[in-house]
């Protein structure tokens, strides 16, 4: 076990960093906000942490925290700017924001190290600490998927007008999505920069946007668990695919395309569906399950495929 752990340390670290990165896109998506600003925040966090560590030798968590504060402020300002946009247009605007940051980093002179980036951000950040941070984040996000908060977020996604009419402050919730996304992205970027001790403009670009989006869609976009599944798969897949040798990248693309086409609710959705089918077969509570799911989700039409995760067990035990 310990040998395996040491041999795969980098992949284990990457898994947790990718998890935070995927969550920074997934959290706004849960509110129907299609924003890639989390990737830009990843860049902000990575550069801020590296600069603070190299120039002022701040301790690891202070450096990461500084990046998170900057990214949260940037996220809030961005939310004010793009408040009129929706759907794919919002997605494009936030991709543009991310890529502008990349160009700024290339032209940042000695502060950002230009096209080469920054080297030697050596800190005391431990893998255990990274895992701990991830655990805390996941617990907080899991809490936000339940109870009042969870229902509010679902209402904002499924029907913003209805949500406003029942007294949910939709605009404030959307701004919050940008701020939380900024914090998560910057945390991922800061930790990655300190673990690898380097950061360069190439780390933050279109390919990272693509990777994060793929992780969420393939894993499942409705819950943190989907982001976890996605980040595990896409961090370890290249390692596994070494078995097929040269055709590695081709197989990778085929897997992404097939999942997007044939598994619309992500692997998490498949797991949940299988679980429900098992419960239904074992007891005569199928009607109760359907009813509970239908009444919880205002958008009704997509209910059979993607139930809210926590409703199913409750409905089943009734």
């Amino acid at each position, binding site marked *: 076990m310990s040998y395996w752990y040491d041999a795969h340390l980098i992949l284990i670290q990457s898994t947790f960093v990718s998890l935070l990165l995927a969550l920074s896109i997934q959290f706004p998506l849960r509110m*129907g906000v*299609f924003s890639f600003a989390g990737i830009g925040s990843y860049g902000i966090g990575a550069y801020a942490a590296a600069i603070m560590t190299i120039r002022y030798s701040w301790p690891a968590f202070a450096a990461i925290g500084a990046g998170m504060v900057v990214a949260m402020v940037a996220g809030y300002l961005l939310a004010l*700017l*793009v408040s*009129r*946009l929706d*759907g*794919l*247009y919002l997605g*494009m*605007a936030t*991709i*543009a*924001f991310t*890529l*502008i940051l*990349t*160009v*700024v980093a*290339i*032209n940042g002179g000695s502060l950002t190290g230009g096209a080469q980036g920054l080297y030697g951000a050596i800190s005391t950040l431990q893998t255990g600490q990274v895992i701990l941070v991830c655990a805390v984040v996941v617990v907080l996000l899991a809490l936000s998927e339940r109870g009042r908060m969870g229902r509010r977020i679902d209402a904002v996604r499924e029907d913003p007008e209805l949500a406003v009419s029942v007294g949910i402050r939709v605009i404030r919730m959307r701004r919050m999505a940008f701020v939380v996304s900024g914090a998560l992205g910057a945390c991922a970027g800061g930790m990655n920069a300190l673990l690898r001790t380097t950061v360069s403009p190439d780390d933050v670009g*279109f*390919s990272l946007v*693509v990777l994060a*989006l*793929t992780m969420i*869609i*393939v894993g499942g*976009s409705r819950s943190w668990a989907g982001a976890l599944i996605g980040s595990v798969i896409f961090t370890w897949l290249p390692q596994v695919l070494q078995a097929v040798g*040269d*055709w*590695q*990248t*081709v197989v*990778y*693309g*085929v*897997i*992404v*395309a*097939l*999942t*997007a*086409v*044939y598994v*619309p609710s992500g692997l998490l959705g498949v797991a949940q569906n299988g679980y429900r089918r098992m419960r239904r077969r074992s007891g005569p509570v199928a009607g109760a399950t359907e009813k509970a799911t239908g009444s919880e989700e205002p*958008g009704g*039409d*997509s209910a059979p*495929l*993607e139930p809210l995760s926590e409703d199913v067990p409750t409905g089943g035990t009734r």
Partner: protein
Amino acid sequence: MAQDVINAATLGSLYLLFALGMSLAWGTIGILNFAHGSIFMFSAFVCHLIVREAALPMPVAVLIGLVVGAVISVLVQVLAFEPIQRRAADHRRAELQILVGGIGMAGVLLAIAQRVTKSVPFGFSESTFRVHVYDLGFVRLSNVQIVIVVAACLLAGLAGWWLRSSRSGLALRAIGVDPEVATMMGVDRRKLAVAIMAASGGLAGVAGVLLTYYLGSIAAESGDAFLLKAFAAIVLGGVGSVGGAAVGAAILAVVETIVLVQTSGTWVDAVSFGLIFLMLLVRPRGIFGRKEVRRT
């Protein structure tokens, strides 16, 4: 100065050829095709493989690019986008899945090209076509540049005529406004979707082959950069409008050329993203865009 105008016109024509198909597919059948950049690159790549075996003249090479682009684009539509649209529960989820489906397809095409070329840039050095540069005293103009500008004007005009004046073009625009009602009026959505994707891929293929002739060689990775530029052109001009795509491509090319001439060149990439951002803030539907008819 005159030289810069010529270069901007060539660049703008290439952007137009590339962005036009993407814009039309997005504006009519609602598909934002992330595989468009890879289709563009792969057409040039297949053309390179064929030209390596047989020395072909330029028109034949362009034709090969057109056919290959159209075939791949239709394949992507039939294999990925059609099943997604058929199965998706609602419009927003379908949009996301189409993005990722396109990314997956793009990944496959890119991986094949990278594997065969070993990531070395490829070109058409065996083609019978030779680049001629005409020195007109105040500017230098190559025959490739003339072909590119003429091709862009011709094909964009053709696409505009198709959408505006033909029956199938009218049907396509109807799908863009309201797919359900269009189907009720007897429009065959499936057939027209395949047709627009074929046209879109064909334009990308022509753009890919012409770019390769213009630059001498391209790398397998050059599709992604073009994809982002095309977004900028589309968002600037307005989704689904031929005139909009032309104006967007022209603005983008002119501003990029100005920045390239005036500064050290490292800021050029910021231009397209900055323009997207500004345009979305000021006028999200673009210069020529109609008011978006949002389906709920």
